[in-house]
């Protein structure tokens, strides 16, 4: 049986999170806004209007280029991509063509086997988004809100080798975009859009066979599923003696089906030419250096450092660099705590992440600060509170904004390790449960746990477990 290798390239459109659109002063983000409410003469292409470039879009685009190890061109150009569609009010899209802002670049993907897959970037340019059309009851409606929203189009080389790798690329790209703060990168909201180019070849071959392009894959799961489906189809075509044709396919996520949109035998001619309404985009060397210098430590670098510096397992390091707020949170907590970084990791992975998920916020939005967490861990280590108390304590800090120490004091949460108080509680429990005492003494030693539970209940969880165990054992043996 022939074995096949899958060749995938991804074309992504990344919506930059600027306040205003790329060529006018309209609000860029129109999520849940009424159609055609964030529009003006410029973004709707009225006669006589001219684009004026939003510098924030250039900065964010350059930051992405720097993060992708692309060269930021000091002189780049905008070009017109000419085509007709109702959602494109000027009849051309202002984009970049041969001399775009970013040149080259790559993203290194860590693979489960410990290797690294380098995905090269073939194209990276700034452009304006088009609007949206929808067809309803025989009428075609156009919404121009999205016209002129700044995008970066980024195209990878044919460097990915499986649906999982494609998904991994998107996961890492999304992480990076949020990390450097240039895009919300929410695929469901269209901040990060993806088309996948897929072809297959027999293992060992180095040719690039005819590829198909899958459009409309709007979640990471959809990318994975659509590619798997398409690879299956291509193998079937080849195995049955056919030839894969250069189709454009549409992915229907609900039905899990690919349908052919069109044959793509000849490339469309967009008649690109320099946009005469914009000057060449000239950047200075100092500006470029400033952008590169402002780049934060990137997730994969930080992940490696966490493993090295804090001796974290790969699993922990990965989760603790999944986004920048949790990563910063962890580092701050480690530094405030001063003890074993793995202990802090355990607390964050168990308690803080759960709290964050329950509340639907990011780590930097928690009331519970890294310093609070460190304080609570120290209270446990000092034997002031037990683990269970500490967990509920963290919730109380989040709810009240008070410090852990203050809550422990105010609510008397410190452990009861005073023998006489514990002894009184134990005596009371034994007196109230003569049958259980008799059973225990008759050999049912498994009841010990039940007695411990009663002690905890009596002391409302504050009993020092070690002291309680010793006193309870004595009492049950009749030594009390």
């Amino acid at each position, binding site marked *: 049986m022939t074995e096949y290798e899958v060749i995938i390239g991804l074309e992504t459109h990344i919506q930059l999170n600027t306040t205003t659109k790329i060529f006018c002063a309209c609000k860029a983000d129109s999520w849940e806004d009424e159609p055609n409410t964030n529009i003006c*003469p410029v973004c*709707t*292409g*009225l*006669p*006589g*209007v*001219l*684009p*004026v*470039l939003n510098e924030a879009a250039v900065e964010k685009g350059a930051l992405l280029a720097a993060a992708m190890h692309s060269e930021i061109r000091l002189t780049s150009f905008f070009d*017109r991509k*000419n085509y*007709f569609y*109702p959602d494109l*009010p*000027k*009849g*051309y899209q202002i984009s970049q063509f041969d001399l775009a802002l970013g040149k080259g670049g790559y993203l290194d993907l860590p693979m489960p086997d410990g290797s690294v897959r380098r995905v090269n970037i073939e194209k990276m340019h700034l452009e304006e988004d088009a609007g949206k059309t929808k067809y309803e009851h025989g009428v*075609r409606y*156009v919404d121009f809100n999205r016209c002129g929203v700044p995008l970066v189009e980024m195209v990878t080389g044919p460097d990915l080798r499986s649906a999982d790798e494609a998904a991994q690329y998107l996961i890492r790209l999304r992480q990076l975009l949020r990390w450097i703060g240039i895009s919300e990168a929410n695929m469901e909201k269209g901040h990060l859009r993806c088309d996948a180019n897929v072809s297959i070849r027999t293992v060992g071959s180095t040719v690039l066979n005819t590829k198909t392009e899958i459009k409309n894959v709007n979640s990471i799961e959809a990318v994975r599923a659509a590619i798997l489906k398409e690879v299956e189809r291509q193998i079937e075509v080849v195995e049955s003696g056919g030839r894969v044709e250069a189709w454009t396919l549409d992915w229907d996520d609900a039905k899990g089906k690919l349908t052919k949109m069109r044959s793509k035998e000849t490339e469309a*001619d967009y*008649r690109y*030419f320099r946009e*005469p*309404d*914009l*000057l060449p985009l000239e950047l200075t060397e100092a500006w470029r250096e400033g952008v590169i210098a402002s780049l934060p430590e990137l997730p994969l670098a930080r992940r490696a450092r966490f493993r090295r510096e804090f001796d974290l397992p790969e699993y922990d390091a990965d989760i603790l660099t999944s986004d920048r707020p949790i990563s910063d949170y962890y580092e701050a907590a480690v530094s405030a705590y001063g003890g074993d970084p793995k202990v802090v990791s355990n607390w964050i992975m168990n308690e803080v992440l759960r709290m964050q998920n329950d509340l639907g916020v990011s780590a930097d939005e928690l009331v519970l600060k890294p310093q609070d967490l460190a304080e609570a861990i120290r209270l446990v280590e000092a034997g002031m509170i037990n683990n269970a108390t500490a967990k509920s304590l963290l919730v109380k800090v989040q709810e009240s904004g008070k410090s852990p120490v203050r809550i422990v004091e105010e609510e008397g949460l410190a452990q009861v390790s005073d023998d006489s108080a514990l002894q009184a509680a134990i005596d009371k429990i034994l007196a109230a449960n003569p049958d259980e005492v008799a059973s225990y003494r008759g050999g049912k030693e498994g009841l010990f746990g039940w007695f411990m539970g009663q002690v905890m209940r009596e002391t409302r969880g504050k009993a020092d477990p070690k002291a309680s165990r010793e006193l309870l054992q004595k009492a049950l043996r009749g030594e009390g």
Partner: protein
Amino acid sequence: MTLMDQSAFITAQKVKAGERSAVEVLESALERIAVVDGRPGSLDYGELTDEDKAKVHAFITLTADRARQQAEAVDAKVRAGEAVGPLAGVPLSVKDIFTVKGMPSTAASRILATFTAPYTATAVQRLEAAGAINLGKVNLDEFTYGSSSESSAFQPSPRNPWDTSRVPGGSSGGSTASVAAGEALLSLGTDTAGSIRQPAAFCGVVGVKPTYGRVSRYGLIAFGSSLDCPGPVAANVRDAALMLGAMAGADPHDSTAAKVPVPDYLASLEQGVQGMRIGLSPDYMKITFPDAETGELVEQDLPEEIKAATLHAAEVLARLGAEIVEDVPMPHTAYGIPAYFVISRVEAASNLHRYDGVKYGYRTQSDYHDLNEMYRKTRAEGFGLQPKLRILMGMYVSAAQYAEQYYARALRVRSLLRSDFDAAFDPAGAYKLDALLTPTTPTTAFKMADVYGDSVLMQYADQLTVPANHAGIPGLSLPGGIASDGLPIGVQFLAPDFAEETLFRAGQAFETATAAEAWRKIKPEVLR
């Protein structure tokens, strides 16, 4: 002699001083329009009558009520002792290629006949802010595509006030005709290959194509975006300088509008030409065009009268102390039109994409079954011949397989044309020119319908003006004489980037020195 026979400069002075009211001036303009203009251009024009053929037909849309409100506002300010602008009370006409909020902005095309702009072009807004009284919109070639104004979808098209059987030139023919006939004291035009200077020459008025980027293009319905320049049309050099000063300068809505300070053009106007180096080039004393049969390039000398007017201007300037530098080579002049044909049409085809029947303007009234049919019918019915020709040509020469052969080559020719001027104006070069003096046009105004229909020949009317558009440099055309056919002849000054002051100084010197010459006394036919 009416108020419309006075200069814009004097008019503004008098209005500011309260000696004349803006309303009085406006009424005088409206009276003149009523006498000379005839019916405005419209889509349903029917047969042209003999009376039509004797009128100017500069206007498409006359907005007398809006103008009255503006005039009253200026007068109210004057009465209240408040400051008014340098164009206070000056009647202005605007080429209907600029948007004005609330006014139809048609581009003289059926496809925009119903379009009312929701915003005002920067140049118009600045002129109005300076106190100009906007009379309304004047006619032009459809989307400015022409050199006679005959291709307008709004007929009757403008006629030359000197001889109404002749074209006013174009595409700013409505602008130059309205100023020549004294319907407006100033007009705002656009120049992409000579569209201000050529009709200014034909109509015996002053027309300025400023440096590319000197005046904002925001609100100018684009033709060739890398070539288009809004500019003044006026009866004399001082008025043109006054008008340019009021509208030039950087604009946050146009990133190609230069952030170069705007000098006080009036302050240097009278400084004369003493010591100025003014060049003459043999390459501007002939035209080169393809033979209709063979396609071979044929050279032809300009008519003697045209050459003589330019040489007369050189003599006058020499008497005033200018140094005339002869035989300045401008070797790429002949290629200006072919290169322009390609570049302007690529940009035009793209600029016309937006007129698709989806959002505004004309949409086909007949049935259509899908989007593409709607596009096809809308554009087939909405565009006239010129836009269609330019779309076809523009699409062809920018197609992937031809772009290198045509578009890229035309851009290289454009650089060569620029290098001609760089060499002539280079302060360290062989010629060190302050300005080049040339004829504006190869002929005087031609007969209506004589050239119309021959798109190639029509284009050659711009051969002496288009190099400035390629190079981005400023040019000024002003009257230099009257030919034996009784029609005005224009002479042109060309200067380096942002040297409009030089143009105005040279123009003013020539105008003043020739004030007493006999041809200056001759009036346009419609005013006799």
